[in-house]
């Protein structure tokens, strides 16, 4: 296992392996995105109280749920950087921060549009919305911290520490709707029965969209990591060979 672990840490090995993985992620992602979006926009029945506005949920929930993955991901990568000094882990951590900021911003914006129509306000300082905004600012903080420090080793360590600390906020976001009273509703529980709240006709397209957006996250992360590998390893022989082969 340790051999496998150190092998995965080699940027060259990851570059080659991820190149072979990519089509197996991109093809299902494209299929599920098309099926999910068409289903959610055209075939989901209007909600009994929210009407057509319910369709925003099929964008909002996938983005909101995947944006909670970024801090744990960066914290794991950061811990590997601090303890094992693996180059690849820091590359992943570096590209994850701006991606996370985009995903968090999309969750906040889609939520605002939903709220402005249904709640009657686009923003309220309740536990869920505020902790999610805090995550956005923490990610901006991680990005700024990395670009502020000249020494890339020091920057990697500082970002790793901030990512581990920022992880605590993920629990606050997740449980905010249960610990405190908020305007935001808690997470739904799905029902297998057709005649119950949250029946399959509501959640099956949602699950499709969630898987599609998770794959989109994986593809974006792998593509940006590959980019970062080429950037940092540009003096390595294997990258030179790759460029010449083009």
């Amino acid at each position, binding site marked *: 296992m340790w051999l496998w672990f150190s092998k995965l840490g080699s940027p060259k090995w990851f570059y080659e392996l991820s190149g072979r993985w990519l089509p197996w992620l991109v093809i299902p992602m494209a299929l599920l995105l098309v099926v999910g979006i068409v289903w959610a926009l055209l075939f989901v029945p209007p909600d009994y109280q929210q009407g057509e506005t319910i369709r925003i949920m099929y964008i909002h929930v996938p983005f909101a749920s995947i944006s909670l993955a970024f801090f744990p991901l960066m914290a794991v990568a950061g811990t590997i950087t601090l303890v094992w000094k693996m180059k690849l882990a820091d590359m992943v951590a570096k590209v994850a921060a701006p991606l996370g900021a985009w995903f968090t911003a999309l969750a906040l914006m889609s939520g605002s549009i939903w709220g402005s129509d249904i709640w009657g306000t686009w923003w309220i300082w309740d536990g869920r919305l505020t902790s999610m905004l805090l995550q956005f600012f923490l990610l901006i903080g991680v990005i700024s911290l990395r670009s502020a420090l000249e020494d890339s080793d020091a920057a990697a360590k500082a970002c790793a520490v901030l990512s581990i600390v920022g992880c605590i906020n993920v629990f606050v976001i997740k449980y905010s709707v249960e610990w405190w009273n908020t*305007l935001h*509703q808690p997470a739904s529980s799905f029902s297998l029965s057709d005649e119950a709240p949250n029946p399959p006709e509501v959640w099956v397209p949602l699950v499709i969209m969630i898987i599609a957006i998770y794959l989109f996250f994986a593809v974006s992360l792998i593509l940006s990591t590959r980019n970062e590998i080429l950037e940092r390893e540009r003096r390595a022989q294997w990258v030179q060979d790759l460029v010449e082969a083009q």
Partner: protein
Amino acid sequence: MNPHRQKKLSIILFVAAGLSVTVGLILYAMSQNINLFYTPTQVAQGEVRAGQRIRIGGMVKEGSVVSANDSLQVRFETTDYVHAVPIEYEGILPDLFREGQGIVAEGSVDSSGVFHASRVLAKHDENYMSQEVKVALDAAGVNTDNHPSSLILPES
């Protein structure tokens, strides 16, 4: 794993655990401030001063909504089914506003116990379904009242 790395890893885990406990305690201490709204029971029991700007969250009591014919003035009661607080409001209500709906209102209580709202927001629960399913459930006598759990006091 060599001892040096093991030591580093345990320092990281220790610091992370310590920070989590600290943040947890701070949030627990501040929970009354983090809560978005007061319940009608808290207001009825005098937990807030008259004139203090607060939010109140509850259900719109069935049969309590009275709207003026010539203005946007509306009067209704909000309840957690233990206590009810009368609310006066002038302005546009969210589309979801109706009797039996969860709401959060911003404003203040006057000395006679009436809440003067400057803004009324709708709070819905986490149950989504089509009109057909809703009708079928109502016909079958299943309770699908839109009652966000945080608006109702736990039954004791």
